[in-house]
């Protein structure tokens, strides 16, 4: 009886994906305990974030893709309106206007856009069933660029690029022509020098430091240098949990959020990194599988985009912490401390699960 109830309760939860998420979250809590200077409060707080996020996931998993498809446009419009509201009335912190005060709490509309963007584009292409033409792609491109431009203006370059890429994934999976892709890439590279020459010296300097932190070891480059030292000194098997000197002696900045990977890497070493990369790969493979088995254009494109977006976040974060990408404020998915990103992430996984578990119903 109870098992039947549980079965019913979790019938839209993908057990494999769920297991992976649990494992990642477990890692998160352990790393967080070490990164926060062994603050159990921080761990509790993150555990609550996770519970909230998983609840959201459960709810979304129980909503059928068809229903999601119907709210896609609405979500997108609301998201864009909120972004405009941010630009007009948003509160400024750390020199950027990202938050909107809605009375009882503050929200960050760009987070909503992370989900709304792929949903909108997936919906758009699903309405143009069959082979989409060039006009469709141009319209999709405009739908993509409007919110991205607003977010870029905040300014939040990292989020803007990641949201742009989540939209781009839809375009790519929808069959954007290779000719266009190659052409765009070539023209972008051709425009680079012209763009570079337009910049002020200090702007160039800033970009140079982004790519070469050693140019400013005590300023902007400090974070990256300390993170690389942490990773490198972790060695093959790491210094052991709670034994990372860079971590425990406060040399690592932002070590519970954006730079948490350096903490993990220092304490668990190369083997730990491989394990984490493996875990992320498994999640991505599972997501791509769900996408490939999805039955409607909308769910296919959405599942693919969400999965690749998860990859983007993981790759950009690990890349910046290990010094091969410039530092942009992107958390490590599932591991970094923070409620909003955890909820958004699980919302995405909820959609994946919904797509996967509702396909038989559709077939029926």
């Amino acid at each position, binding site marked *: 009886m109870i098992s039947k109830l549980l079965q019913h309760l979790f019938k839209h939860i993908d057990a494999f994906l769920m297991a992976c998420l649990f494992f990642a979250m477990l890692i998160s809590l352990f790393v967080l305990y070490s990164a926060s200077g062994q603050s159990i409060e921080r761990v509790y707080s993150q555990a609550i974030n996770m519970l909230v996020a998983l609840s959201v996931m459960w709810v979304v998993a129980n909503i059928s893709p068809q229903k999601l498809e119907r709210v896609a446009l609405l979500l997108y419009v609301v998201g864009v309106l909120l972004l405009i509201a941010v630009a007009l009335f948003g509160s400024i912190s750390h020199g950027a206007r990202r938050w909107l005060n809605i009375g009882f709490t503050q929200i960050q509309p760009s987070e909503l856009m992370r989900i709304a963007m792929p949903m909108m584009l997936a919906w758009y292409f699903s309405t143009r069933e069959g082979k989409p033409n060039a006009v469709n792609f141009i319209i999709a491109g405009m739908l993509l660029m409007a919110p991205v431009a607003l977010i870029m203006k905040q300014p939040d370059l990292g989020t803007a690029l990641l949201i742009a890429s989540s939209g781009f994934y839809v375009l790519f999976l929808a069959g954007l022509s290779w000719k266009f892709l190659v052409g765009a890439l070539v023209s972008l590279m051709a425009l680079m020098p012209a763009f570079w020459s337009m910049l002020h010296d200090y702007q160039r300097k800033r970009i140079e430091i982004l790519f070469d932190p050693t140019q400013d070891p005590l300023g902007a480059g400090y974070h990256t240098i300390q993170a690389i030292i942490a990773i490198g000194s972790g060695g093959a098997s790491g210094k052991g949990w709670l034994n990372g000197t*860079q971590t425990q002696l406060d040399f690592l900045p932002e070590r519970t959020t954006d730079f948490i990977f350096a903490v993990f890497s220092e304490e668990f070493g*190369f083997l730990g990194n491989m394990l984490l990369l493996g875990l992320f790969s498994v999640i991505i493979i599972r997501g791509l599988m769900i996408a490939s088995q999805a039955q409607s254009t909308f769910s*296919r494109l959405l599942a693919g985009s969400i999965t690749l977006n998860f990859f983007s976040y993981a790759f950009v974060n*690990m890349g910046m912490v290990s010094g091969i990408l410039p530092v942009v404020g992107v958390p490590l998915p599932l591991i970094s401390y923070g409620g909003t990103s955890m909820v958004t992430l699980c919302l995405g996984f909820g959609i994946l699960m919904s797509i996967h578990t509702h396909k038989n119903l559709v077939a029926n």
Partner: protein
Amino acid sequence: MGAELKNHLHEQYYFKLRLGFAGLAVFCLFSALAFRFSYLQIKQYNHYQTLAENNRISLVPIIPNRGLIVDKNGVVLAHNFFAYTLEITPAKVYNLEETITEIGKLVEISSVDRKRFKKFREQSHNFESIPIRTHLNEVEAAKFAVNHYRFPGVEIKSRLFRHYPLGKLGSHMVGYIGRINDKDLVNLEASGDLSNYKGSDHIGKSGLEQYYEKHLHGITGFQQVEIDADGHAVRVLSSNPPIPGNNIVLSADSKLQEIAETAFGERRGAMVAINPKTGEVLSYVSQPTFDPNLFVDGIDSENWKALNESLDKPLINRPLRGVYPPGSTFKPFVAMAGLEAGKREPPYSIHDPGFFTLPGSSHRYRDWKPSGHGSVDMQKAITISCDTFFYGLAMELGIENLAAFVRHFGFGRKSDFDIKGEIEGLLPTPEWKKRRFKQPWYPGETVIVGIGQGYTLVTPLQLAQATAILANNGVAMRPHLVSQIQNTQSGKNQIVAPFIQDKIELNPNNIAIVKQGMMDVTLPGGTAASVGANAGYAIAAKTGTAQVIGIKQNEKYNEHGIDERHRDHALFIAYAPAEDPKIALAVIVENGGHGGSAAGPIARKVMDYYLLGKLPATEPVKENKKSNGNTAATVPEEELHD
């Protein structure tokens, strides 16, 4: 329907193709990350391991205890004590003024503290820790400690402070330490000692503190400490204890020093007493003195102004850097030069009419006694300080011969003394005058060198050393203040051995003549008879008076008619007991008037205590005028002049 299904399958096929491509991209990019990790964590592991170690392990210097300075009887002249100090690192403080005001609400910060802080701030870098308050008591330290969190960049430190318990006594000898400045850093770097001063804030700035810096400082220890990014020590990994500095033991006696300084009273001047057989300096007086404790943590501007702008110039190390015309105290050495050159040997004598003239000139070089001394031989010339006798002798010797000879007695050159900053003085020669003034040497200038006037300049140390060399029959011992260096770690004492600098070949008969002349100075009939009265031991001495302002021909010098600071300097050299000298000294009382009456009694008090252990009977006379008035009434005319 079929076409639609086909189309649908076609679309799915393309979608999977694209997915596969995306999967490949994911694989490639994750592989790139894996490659990056292997590069950092496997290939470059050692490199980053070292960097991490360097990050977390810091060498914290442990400052050694500075050696003590004690007198020959073990009386402490300089020692250390622990106290709290409140220090600010300006770079870490957002609003300096506000922070200081806020601290001021917890512990008292005087305007002097603020001024000193401001001075240091101008002199040091932004990231250096600068004291805002020193010598906090326990209550103040605790009060601040409780509120420490409110003041990032402000630290309370427990530090060793240097203290000079005897204060003003012998301060020119002991010297002081002060905060290390840029110039000190350059010097330390040049001498390769910079690493030993990691963590040290202070360095010897003057006197023995400066000269014996290497011995006193000790060797800095180090602690390997695990630190966090803010530089706070988390735990000690290993420790290498410091080696405390050596103690230095003086040949001077603080009691003797006190007697000598008290004897000077309010008067300006200098005195150096030397053991002629060893070169050990027994007393080293520069009056007025100052309190070296003012300098340890930076002197505030008011005290500095008071010291620096005082007409009495208390900061000048007079024995070493004060230059005076030797006056008649130069005569014994001129006499020695004459005798050794075969001139004026007994029974040669002159008739003194009260003046000397150069051939073919009417200019009169006057004797201090206008009526003249009558028949004068070498011994009597010294005893009564006959100017006419020495005018002629100098003329006959010639300036070059005279200068070359007396140079052996240490005039016109440095003595290699153990306080830095010694001045050479001046033994004028025609060559020097040509270089200095581009003028020829006139014979009259040689004449007055015979009585220690003219360009001739000596330091009190040189005068004392010359006296000691004479007392020691021409054997020059290196003068030095420190007799022992005690290694506090091993307990071993390194004795500063007497060092013979020079041996002047002198005819014993000639020595005997000069010495006898000097012995008679303190006997009835001599220019310092009162100094030798009832001494109980024989004193060989010579008085001197050095002109501060020129007196025109035919003008009479009237002591009471001119400003106190324009009066003559009083000089006095002596050694005793005359037959077996144990102490040789030179005393200069600036604007004191006559050597015998102003400087002589000081010498007598010093010798009495040193030779007999006798304490001075009466309080020193505080006022210059009174002293002259008193002595003038009781001493014979001979003593009022020389």
